[in-house]
């Protein structure tokens, strides 16, 4: 386990609001993520978990509030969003690998065309990562030839290869067959060991309890309860939290 540096947050968000027309999806969310920390976002479908992650990556424009990445206010309108996005990796539930590119080229694309690395340098970085997740022999395969678990691990590696300051994982195991979930969770555990800072929306409660340092329970676009992971699951205070946990574990 890496030690968490509590002195200065890697990411700080205050009063994040997001509406779709009249519907309030996020009703003022505050969030602090410290270097090396893993924050788990839990909550039922439609509670705003995915929207929050998309707002943090600036894929969605927030309707109020502020977001800081270290010392930079990334919610300021004059910010170069493309520059910010390579610092904040986002991985999707549906993998979204580039269908026309090999596994290797999926990973090297942003290394070369966003970070301006040479082809050789980008490929050596990509191959190091593929080796780490045991997919080096698949580097020239296309995404549709890989299992869901292999695709999702590639998608995660595609994001972390850019060496982002923060990694956002949006229900990365929800679209997988049950027997493929384990290999993806294993990779996330591995990333935590090497000090990656992660915010993950998840339905895997036992995994959240094992790996997360901090758990946030979102309900109808606001934080209903949050706390240190082990304590949160052992002693939920709010009735809503208890009900949600009971419903999920009762499945």
């Amino acid at each position, binding site marked *: 386990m890496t030690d968490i540096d509590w002195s200065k947050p890697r990411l700080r968000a205050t009063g994040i609001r997001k509406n779709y027309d009249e519907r309030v999806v996020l009703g003022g969310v505050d969030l602090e993520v410290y270097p090396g920390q893993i924050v788990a976002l839990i909550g039922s479908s439609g509670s705003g978990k995915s929207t929050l992650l998309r707002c943090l990556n600036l894929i969605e424009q927030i309707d109020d509030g502020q977001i800081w990445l270290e010392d930079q206010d990334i919610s300021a309108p004059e910010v170069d969003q*493309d520059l*910010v*996005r390579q610092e904040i*990796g*986002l991985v999707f539930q549906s993998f*979204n690998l*580039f269908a026309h590119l090999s596994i290797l080229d999926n990973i090297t*694309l942003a290394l070369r*065309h*966003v970070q301006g690395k040479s082809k050789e340098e980008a490929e050596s970085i990509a191959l190091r990562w593929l080796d780490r997740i045991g997919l080096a022999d698949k580097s020239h395969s296309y995404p549709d030839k890989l299992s869901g678990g292999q695709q999702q691990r590639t998608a995660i590696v595609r994001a972390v290869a850019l060496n982002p300051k923060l990694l956002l994982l949006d229900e990365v195991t929800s679209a997988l067959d049950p027997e493929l979930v384990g290999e993806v969770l294993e990779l996330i555990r591995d990333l935590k060991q090497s000090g990656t800072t992660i915010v993950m929306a998840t339905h895997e409660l036992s995994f959240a309890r094992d790996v997360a340092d901090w758990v946030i329970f979102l309900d109808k676009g606001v934080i209903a309860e949050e706390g240190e992971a082990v304590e949160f699951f052992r002693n939920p205070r709010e009735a809503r939290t208890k009900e949600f946990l009971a419903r999920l574990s009762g499945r």
Partner: protein
Amino acid sequence: MTQTQSEYEPSAIEHARRSFRIQRKRKSTLVAIASTLLFSLVVAIGLVSTPGWERVTESFFNIEVGIEAFPRILEGIWLNLRVLFFTTISVVVFGLLLALLRTLRNPVFFPLRLFAHGYVDFFRGLPLIIVLYIVGFGIPGLRLEWLGRIPVEVLGTVALTLTYSAYVSEVFRAGIESIHPSQRLAARSLGLSYGKSMRLVVLPQAIRRVAPPLMNDFVALQKDVGLISVLGAIDAVRGAQIEVATYANFTPYVLAGILFVLLAIPTVRFTDRISAKLAQREQSGSAL
């Protein structure tokens, strides 16, 4: 060690099924051959027995006239080929440009988007032959001295490009819009700009997907280059027309037609191959 498929001996039932399938296939092949022969025979007898058949063969399939007219028509089709070459290149460039203009969402680009929209509507509606007349006789009519005398084949290329860019841009646009937004989202989330995600992620997939309809438009273009003859360019059609007037015989037209078909066949076959390959890639494993 499991047995390989070649070592495996199928059961009696499977053997029976296989021989039944082979027999059925043989039978349908025979039926197809027989019906083709019969159909050709009926058409041939029907044609030959018409009262004017002899005169038609004389004026449309006259071998001597064909040999006499051949050099001029061949020279003409070479002009058609050159015009086709340059038109294809400019149609791809302008078609893609128009398609990209129409996908721009920033309000700043509203005039450009409006222009592209209007252009595509206008030139898809306007008959090609009218475009040819307007460009072919209108532009020289402006008497722009600094341009000098523009060769008719250049004017023809411009007119064909104007019309075909409109069609091809719609094919490109359909391709771009068929790529799932999540692909662009993934590209943007990695920090790629709008332009780069378009160029590196969306367009390569879009072009691959629309290759078959795109090739279809180029097959159509291949024969429409013959229309530049209305401007007076001595292409295969115009060359044939001259020979028809010389010999008072229609064989040169037939000859030019055959040359155009021969020209189209490689492109058509190529298109079929691409379509088949794409279909195979997209539904690998399923037989239906």
